[in-house]
């Protein structure tokens, strides 16, 4: 208790006397903690609770039977005829949009005839299929009707309600025949009879999945082996939820990278805690001497300063908890949109702040604060009482070895180069991250020498250019080299991450824009009105392409079809293009550098494919290799003719000739149409004709320019969260600068007061502090830009490549960088305003005569 009292008197009370500075430090830690927590919570909601409606409504089954393009219906008969006691549940699975609310939901076709009674009894909460609330006529009466649907209660429709659903490119009328309980809305779906679903989707003779419930004995593996023998070659059998697990694995890299980005704010916060405790140690050096002389041990001093940091960490974490929860609500929307665009259909779950998450936030806040305070605290503990009482802060400030640290920086830089050349470990670019960390540490080590060189050599020039205030500011920064270096390190780390991510995203954006010029040669593009995702490819009524083809002014219509497939138990996209129509573009988009025409000629009506770059990375294949795909009921081996650059999805794609695809998957419905307008026709006229011809269908028609703009919009939305994370890191750093300048003003109050005695005007004092802020910003911008460039190379060529498999061509996004750096610089100077006012309001008489 007496120790706590002493801790309060000697450590906490002085903090309370500087509430603004203490609050800035606490808030900086709080933001760092909040960002990490927000990304964790949002990631869990957007991807972690990925058990989608499809799975939530799958029931307690053991195995699932799937095939690319759908499982032939006769497989159900084959399974039924086996002499085993197996529950067999065939399902149609797709998506539909409720026209009124524009809400996209899973559409599930269940075999009500075969399983109707069991659906009427089972409860969704138990993990089985939904228990349907009876309507007055009884639940089974309308099961067979093509217009009957059942909905989750969270959607708010009553039994008997009529609703319109957009399925592929058709709007259809349905009647709600019943509702089932879906506790949090994550299990919401539109349920209908399997025959009605086949009718609505115009897909007859195939089902999407067959779920199997097998007896407990023998084991699941044995059942899998037995049943596989009875299935056609292309039809696969897996434990239920394999796709979900694979998707979750695929999403791990996405979450992992975002989580790492979120730690940048914490790293910046750590620099600032280090600075705060360093300042505290410098200021209280005489007090340390007195307390040591009065009997305090070294460990007591160590614990006092570590405890001070712990207080900052604890307070920051407590503020960060609700802030993180709030930020997660914004982050989850952005993350879910990205998951849908790049990975897989999913509905975000609820954001749940668990006890573990709260504990983690507290541990992060306190842990990072204590760890970053240890070094200055130890320094305080090691100083002898006589030295502490006898000498000022100058001794402390010069205690920094610039030369040694510069050599250390060089060694760390070389280690970073070596780490960047190492391969990924289990698909994770761990050495890439290590290279990035080494570069940050190398930069922090080089900064004292950099700051010293610039401030010492530039002070005269600054004095000539901007007056004596600039010279004094420059000398003051050089005089407090350790403090200045820590501040520049903190801000430059934040700027570097912002620059690196800016360059990476800018390069990626430019690469995608150039790539789209090759990939989107048509004048108009048409797709179904229902929403698409990386794993969701709604189709267009087959006759529509023929109708459009016959329109005047239309030169050609290319039919594109996409399926979700599994290769080596990983989700991928199978795409076909119409080689009879596809136009030749001058630029090659293939690894071999061969012209497109030459490559695609190899695919024409043959078992040859080209695969996307991410596919080669995920599956370790290359040009000339063979891959075996399960298509329909067959297994077919294809030769890889070449590898193409592709940035549309991270899951990997296999591209073949439409004729080849139709041989194995005979569904002619295209997913998209690329329409070429005849040279003599006017685009707008043709567009109007197409709109007229497709009036009875819900389709979306895009001009070439629109579709590119839409792609860039999705791209920008995908990376919005990374920009947000970098912005938070910069805010933390700028807040740190404000706090540090405030501390600087308080520490140098005697010096500032003296300037008034020597004839300095209030405007000059203000200018001095603002110039210091500006110099700090300038040094941090220069160092941050250099470090950011190096980090961007690691991000583009190592981390991105090893995480996602995309080749990004380096590009300087000059406009974005200039705007961002100018903004940060302005923010840094603005951060000096309040400290400058404090400096101006100092009572010169009091501060000069303090001693």
């Amino acid at each position: 208790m007496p120790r706590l009292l002493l801790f309060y008197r000697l450590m906490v009370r002085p903090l309370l006397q500087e509430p603004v500075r203490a609050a800035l430090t606490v808030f900086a830690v709080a933001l760092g903690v909040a960002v990490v927590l927000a990304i964790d919570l949002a990631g869990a909601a957007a991807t972690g609770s990925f058990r989608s409606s499809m799975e939530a409504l799958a029931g307690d089954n053991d195995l699932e039977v799937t095939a690319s393009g759908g499982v032939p219906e006769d497989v159900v008969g084959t399974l039924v005829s086996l002499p085993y006691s197996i529950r067999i549940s065939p399902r149609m699975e797709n998506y539909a949009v409720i026209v009124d609310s524009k809400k996209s939901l899973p559409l599930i076709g269940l075999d009500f005839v075969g399983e109707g009674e069991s659906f009427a009894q089972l409860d969704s909460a138990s993990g089985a299929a939904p228990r349907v609330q009876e309507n007055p006529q009884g639940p089974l009466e309308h099961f067979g009707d093509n217009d009957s649907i059942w909905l989750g209660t969270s959607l708010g429709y009553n039994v008997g309600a009529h609703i319109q659903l957009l399925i592929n490119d058709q709007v259809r009328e349905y009647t709600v025949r019943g509702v089932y309980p879906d506790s949090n809305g994550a299990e919401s779906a539109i349920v209908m009879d399997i025959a009605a679903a086949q009718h609505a989707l115009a897909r007859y003779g195939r089902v999407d999945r067959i779920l199997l419930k097998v007896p407990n004995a023998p084991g699941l593996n044995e059942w899998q082996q037995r049943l596989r023998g009875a299935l056609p070659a292309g039809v696969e059998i897996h434990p239920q939820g394999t796709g979900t697990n694979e998707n979750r694995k695929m999403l791990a890299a996405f979450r992992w990278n975002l989580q790492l980005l979120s730690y940048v704010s914490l790293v910046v916060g750590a620099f600032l805690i280090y600075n705060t405790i360093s300042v505290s140690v410098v200021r209280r050096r005489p007090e340390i001497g007195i307390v040591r002389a009065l009997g305090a041990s070294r460990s007591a001093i160590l614990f006092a300063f570590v405890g001070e940091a712990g207080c900052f960490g604890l307070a920051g974490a407590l503020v960060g908890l609700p802030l993180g929860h709030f930020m997660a609500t914004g982050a989850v929307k952005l993350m879910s949109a990205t998951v849908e665009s790049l990975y897989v259909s999913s509905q975000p779950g609820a954001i749940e702040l668990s006890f573990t998450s709260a504990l983690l936030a507290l541990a992060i806040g306190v842990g990072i604060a204590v760890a970053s305070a240890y070094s200055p605290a130890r320094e305080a503990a090691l100083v002898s009482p006589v030295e502490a009482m006898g000498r000022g802060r100058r001794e402390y400030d010069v205690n920094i070895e610039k030369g040694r640290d510069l050599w250390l920086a060089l060694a760390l830089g070389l280690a970073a180069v070596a780490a960047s050349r190492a391969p990924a470990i289990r698909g994770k670019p761990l050495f890439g991250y290590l290279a990035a960390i080494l570069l940050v540490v190398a930069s922090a080590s080089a900064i004292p020498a950099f700051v010293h060189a610039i401030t010492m050599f530039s002070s005269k020039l600054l004095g000539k250019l901007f007056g004596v205030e600039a010279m004094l500011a420059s000398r003051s920064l050089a005089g407090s080299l350790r403090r200045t270096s820590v501040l520049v390190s903190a801000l430059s780390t934040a700027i570097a991450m912002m620059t690196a991510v800016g360059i990476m995203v800018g390069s990626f954006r430019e690469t995608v824009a150039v790539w789209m010029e090759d990939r989107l040669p048509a004048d108009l593009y048409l797709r179904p009105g229902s929403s698409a995702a990386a794993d969701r490819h709604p189709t267009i009524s087959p006759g529509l392409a023929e109708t459009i083809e016959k329109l005047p002014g239309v030169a050609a219509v290319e039919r594109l079809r996409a399926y979700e497939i599994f290769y080596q138990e990983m989700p991928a996209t199978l795409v076909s293009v119409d080689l009879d129509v596809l136009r030749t573009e001058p630029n090659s988009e293939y690894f071999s550098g061969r012209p497109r025409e030459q490559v695609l000629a190899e695919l024409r009506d043959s078992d040859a494919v080209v695969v996307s770059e991410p596919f080669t990375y995920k599956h370790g294949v290359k040009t000339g290799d063979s891959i075996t795909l399960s298509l329909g009921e067959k297994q077919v081996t294809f030769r890889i003719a070449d590898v193409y650059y592709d940035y549309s999805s991270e899951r990997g794609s296999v591209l073949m000739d439409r004729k080849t695809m139709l041989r194995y998957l005979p569904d002619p419905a295209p997913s998209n149409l690329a329409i070429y307008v005849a040279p003599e026709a006017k685009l707008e006229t043709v567009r109007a004709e197409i709109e007229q011809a497709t009036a009875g269908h819900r389709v979306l028609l895009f001009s070439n320019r629109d579709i590119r703009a839409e792609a860039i919009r999705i791209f920008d939305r995908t990376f919005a969260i990374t920009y947000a994370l970098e912005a938070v890191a910069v805010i933390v750093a700028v807040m740190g600068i404000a706090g540090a300048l405030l501390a600087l003003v308080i520490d140098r109050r005697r010096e500032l007061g003296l300037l008034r005695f020597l004839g300095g005007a209030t405007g000059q004092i203000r200018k001095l502090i603002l110039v210091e802020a500006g110099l700090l910003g300038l040094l941090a911008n220069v160092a941050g830009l250099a470090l950011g460039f190096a980090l961007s190379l690691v991000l583009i060529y190592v981390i991105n490549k090893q995480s996602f498999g995309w080749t990004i061509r380096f590009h300087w996004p000059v406009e974005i960088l200039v705007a961002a750096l100018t903004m940060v610089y302005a923010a840094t100077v603005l951060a000096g305003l309040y400290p400058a006012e404090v400096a101006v309001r100092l009572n010169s008489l009091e501060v000069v005569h303090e001693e």
Partner: protein
Amino acid sequence: MLILSLQNVSKDYLSDGQRIPALSNLSLDVKRGEFVALVGRSGCGKSTLLNLAGAMDFPTAGQVLVDGVSTSSLEDAGLTRLRREKVGFIFQSFQLLHTLTVFENVELPLLLAGKPNAREAARERLAWVELDDLGHRYPHQLSGGQMQRVAIARALIHSPSILLADEPTGNLDTTTGNVILELLRRLTRQQNTATIMATHSVEAAALADMVVQLRDGKIEGITRR
């Protein structure tokens, strides 16, 4: 020629709502070339008088005239200008900026005032205090006496009419202190400056042309030599 005139000056401070008188109805005239010592116990008002004389503070009552200009009639900018032109300060703890060289410390008032040829003036003032070969050193490379001489050179850089010294020998040993006092007296004569020095030291006071004895914010007696 009268350079400083304090006429019925009183100065009160407020502390926790209570009025604490520092100077009471005090009058004093100082001419150019005079070396004045303010003596008295701690808290008698020596530093307050120096602050009023240096236009760093305003009197609560009465007026302070520096070269005929009442400080009470000036705004902040006018006071700053007055200090830049008329007043030089010397402190007990030297108050040099450790990040600046000796030259840079000395030329600082001229630079703050935006005046040209600061380096030549600094070189000359350092010659006055016999430190012309140490201009490129930093303060921590100097002895206490040398630091105070640098502070004197700085105080004289703009040829002030009034030199205010607050315990200039307080942090120095006796021998060095005496050297500094001799220097101050010599420069006062040579530059025709009015030097007002607050001191506890009897030896220091003995060198002054006029000794002003302060007690509880009032002049107890004036001795002229």
